[in-house]
């Protein structure tokens, strides 16, 4: 009895499978690209800069490419969980991911075993230098005020950062070599980092302007210095690090869209063309101005060059500032 019903059930199920699958044989491998939705992997959780960028890109790319780009947040390990996912997905151009400076600097610090050669780059979408921000009622009016105070009171000032061994940490360590000793106070969660600076629990915050845009617009935070060679378009009055005689102008926060390096070059070119159209669109202009991240379009090769150069820069900085045993062994291992 039992066996009979088992068999019946099995028959019925197999039949059902065939019905479902039978019609499906129509799908032969077609040459048109893109022929189905392109999975857009955002390598960080919802609400952050990479998420905004990935979603905006997906939204604007849909009419250009003619297929939807469903966005999936695959967060974890400084974006490396998502990048691993990208590389394990089929490399036919139907998967793309956000690849941002934070992930690249994490590789240099020994997190995630990726390197710039594993990816092909659709294009450079956003880029912005980092800045130091203070609370609106801070006594410091310029970087010089800050530096003088820090030199007179080493270790009294505290800066909210995203952790040790990051671009934030490198910058503070570099400043320390110039006699400006500031304590690094890491906050694991961005929201807590912003709250600490806005609430006055720390004296300053190292961040790119787009991430604290709402506090800049409300006036809770104001910029002191931009770590770049030239002044920022949106903040023309703010001094650059170069003007202050500092040589730490090469750690921009960039965001790219990447695919696997095994993706056929003509498909990368299709995506790059779409990216360039997006960058030129008024919607994107409005978006990048709001987040202070406008950048000029780059070809896949140029983007790759930028990423590879950044990777080497961070590595050499980390070798230069190995203050903890952990970072020493990390930099030795590489």
């Amino acid at each position, binding site marked *: 009895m039992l066996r009979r019903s088992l068999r019946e*059930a099995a*028959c019925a*199920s197999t039949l059902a499978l065939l019905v479902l699958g039978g*019609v499906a044989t129509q*799908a032969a491998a077609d040459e048109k690209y893109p022929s189905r939705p392109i999975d857009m*992997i955002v390598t960080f959780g919802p609400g952050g800069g990479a998420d905004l960028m990935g979603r905006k890109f997906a939204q604007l790319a849909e009419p250009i490419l003619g297929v939807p780009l469903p966005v999936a947040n695959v967060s974890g390990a400084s974006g490396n969980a998502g990048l691993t996912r990208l590389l394990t997905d089929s490399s036919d151009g139907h998967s793309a991911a956000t690849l941002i400076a934070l992930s690249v600097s994490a590789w240099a610090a020994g997190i995630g075993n990726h390197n710039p050669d594993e990816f092909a780059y659709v294009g450079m979408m956003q880029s912005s230098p980092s800045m130091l921000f203070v609370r609106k009622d801070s006594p410091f009016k310029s970087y010089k005020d800050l530096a003088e105070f820090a030199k007179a009171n080493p270790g009294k000032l505290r800066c909210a950062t995203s952790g040790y061994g990051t671009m934030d940490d490198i910058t503070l360590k570099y400043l320390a070599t110039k006699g400006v000793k500031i304590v690094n106070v890491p906050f694991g969660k961005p929201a807590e980092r912003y709250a600490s600076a806005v609430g006055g629990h720390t004296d300053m915050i190292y961040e790119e302007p787009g991430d604290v845009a709402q506090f800049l617009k409300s006036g809770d935070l104001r910029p002191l210095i931009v770590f770049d060679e030239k002044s920022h378009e949106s903040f023309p009055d703010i001094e650059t690090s170069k003007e202050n005689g500092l040589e730490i102008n090469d750690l921009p926060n960039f965001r790219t869209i990447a695919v696997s390096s095994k993706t056929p070059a003509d498909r990368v070119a299709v995506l790059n063309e779409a990216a360039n159209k997006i960058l030129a669109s008024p919607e994107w202009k409005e978006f990048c101005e709001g987040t202070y991240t406008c950048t000029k379009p780059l070809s896949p090769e140029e983007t790759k060059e930028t990423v590879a150069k950044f990777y080497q820069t961070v590595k050499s900085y980390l070798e230069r500032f190995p203050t903890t045993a*952990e970072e020493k*062994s990390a930099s030795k*291992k590489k």
Partner: protein
Amino acid sequence: MTSSKRLIRTAFPLSMLLACAFLWTHIASNPAMLNVPNAVGPGGWPKAMLAGLAFFSLLAFLVELNNWRISARDGNDTTQNGEKANNGSAVMAIAGVGVILIYGFAIPYLGFALATFLFIVTWCLMGQIRSPITISLVSIIGTIVLLYMFVALAKMPLNRGVEPFNQWTISLYRVLRIY
């Protein structure tokens, strides 16, 4: 309290204790990385937690040993308290756990759609449902509804499976107008 339950209760803290000893030396693949001068460092918190776990595992183990002693002395299990163990079939439970594990690990190979369909069929059979009509209806409609809900609507990138199954899933999605 049944003896199998008591056995778990004794063995569980003991295995946790062993796990603590093992984990203590394996916090990071390179222990040198844990040393950060003049700070708690990345190893401090996990060590404190492991110490806490070890302490309470030991305590739980001792309490349980004491319970064994008491029940041995009293000759009967006073903790039973009229509570009848109704744990059902152990074979069924283990089979159930096995099927669930196989389902989870099959998803990346067969793809979510196929694996889910097969899982629902299996589970219904295990649950004494014998009507082929019920089984086919529940599994097919269930799978399709799930696909519409989570692939079409929620746009979740659920696994499509390795190659022959990947094409199959893509075709299925096309038939269902998801792609």
